[in-house]
């Protein structure tokens, strides 16, 4: 029987063709004693097709809490008894957050709002925020504002928003177990509009929401079909008050297998460490993932939870001799 890693070495490393969903599943089903081989190959693929640079990003919540959607992992949903209260960030605070992010060496700053989609109040805040950041800081601006209309897509593109994040979160077949107030297809439609408008597409999800390995592989295949510029990989951190509050953390080895397998499905994509890595992988596992296909990080804090200190990630990149990607304003 042909070994999946031998197949991947030819197909992905040599030819740059990502693994299919069924091939990703073969990787996820590898025994733990093959994990090192999987990560080593994923690292080779990343170095061959993406290079050694690491893209560093900071994120901030412009509008926190009070969201009408029921994403079962999210402490910002207004439909659960979560301790997170609603709050808006003002423009000076937003600019300060962008400055803090730029000081870490980051080239990306993502403005996030907990909404189904932006209303006029939010679009106005984003418009003013983007202009104020551009006047004060040299950094690429990304946004994550939920589902968009075509007019909103066009306006964000015209503002110079460089990348738009909208996560599919999980496999299409598992999505109804995670969100019931909107559909996977509605998210997909926003992503297609963003892509067609020429903005870079950032689309990933959360591992550990009760999906099977088959569904993780399905998700990788669906992301590959979308061809996003960036895939942020989160690992579930169960939040108090949410329907997923009692879910267990993903096992470290399982998380690393997922990283390696997703890299083999997406050889040219920016694969970013996002939330949950600190608890799921710890310091040692974080290093393993950086040597197993990851080529981007969110530094510092997340939207409602804290990350490890930015310096710790930057020191790790120095130790691994992975240069931080320089700023290039292409839009």
């Amino acid at each position, binding site marked *: 029987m042909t070994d999946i890693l031998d197949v991947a070495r030819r197909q992905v490393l040599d030819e740059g063709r990502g693994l299919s969903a069924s091939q990703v599943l073969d990787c996820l089903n590898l025994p733990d004693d093959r994990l090192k081989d999987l990560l080593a190959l994923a690292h080779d693929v990343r170095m061959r097709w993406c290079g050694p640079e690491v893209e560093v990003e900071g994120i901030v919540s412009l509008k926190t809490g009070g969201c009408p959607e029921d994403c079962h992992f999210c402490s910002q949903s207004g439909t659960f008894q979560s301790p997170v*209260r609603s709050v808006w960030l003002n423009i000076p605070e937003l600019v300060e957050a962008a400055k803090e992010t730029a000081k870490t060496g980051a080239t990306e700053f993502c403005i996030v709002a907990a909404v189904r989609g932006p209303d006029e109040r939010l679009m106005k805040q984003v418009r003013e925020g983007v202009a104020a950041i551009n006047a004060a800081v040299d950094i690429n601006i990304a946004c994550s504002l939920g589902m968009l209309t075509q007019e909103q897509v066009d306006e964000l593109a015209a503002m110079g928003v460089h990348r738009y994040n909208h996560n599919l979160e999980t496999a299409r077949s598992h999505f109804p177990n995670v969100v019931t107030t909107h559909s996977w297809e509605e998210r997909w439609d926003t992503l297609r509009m963003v892509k067609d408008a020429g903005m870079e597409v950032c689309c990933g999800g959360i591992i550990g929401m009760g999906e099977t390995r088959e569904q993780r592989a399905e998700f990788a295949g669906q992301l590959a079909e979308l061809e996003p510029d960036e895939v942020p990989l989160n690992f579930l951190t169960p939040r108090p008050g949410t329907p997923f509050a009692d879910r267990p953390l993903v096992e470290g080895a399982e998380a690393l297998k997922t990283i390696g397998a997703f890299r083999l499905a997406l050889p040219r994509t920016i694969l970013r460490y996002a939330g949950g890595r600190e608890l799921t992988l710890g310091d040692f596992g974080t290093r393993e993932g950086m040597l197993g296909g990851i080529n981007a990080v969110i530094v510092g804090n997340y939207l409602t939870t804290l990350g490890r200190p930015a310096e710790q990630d930057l020191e790790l990149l120095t130790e691994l001799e992975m240069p931080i990607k320089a700023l290039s304003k292409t839009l």
Partner: protein
Amino acid sequence: METTTYCDRCGRPDADGPHDACRAARAMEPPRYCPACRRRMIVQVTPLGWTARCSEHGETRG
């Protein structure tokens, strides 16, 4: 008179502890409840810090 204080993560009285799990979780989370009055605080997380504001007891930063 004895003053009741509250866990800033779960909002229950400190005396109802132990709050070991809360303390461990707080390493990666800002506070959510005012330790003096258990009001839910307005919390803003930014890339390098956080603020938590109680309408009665003011703001703390981390």
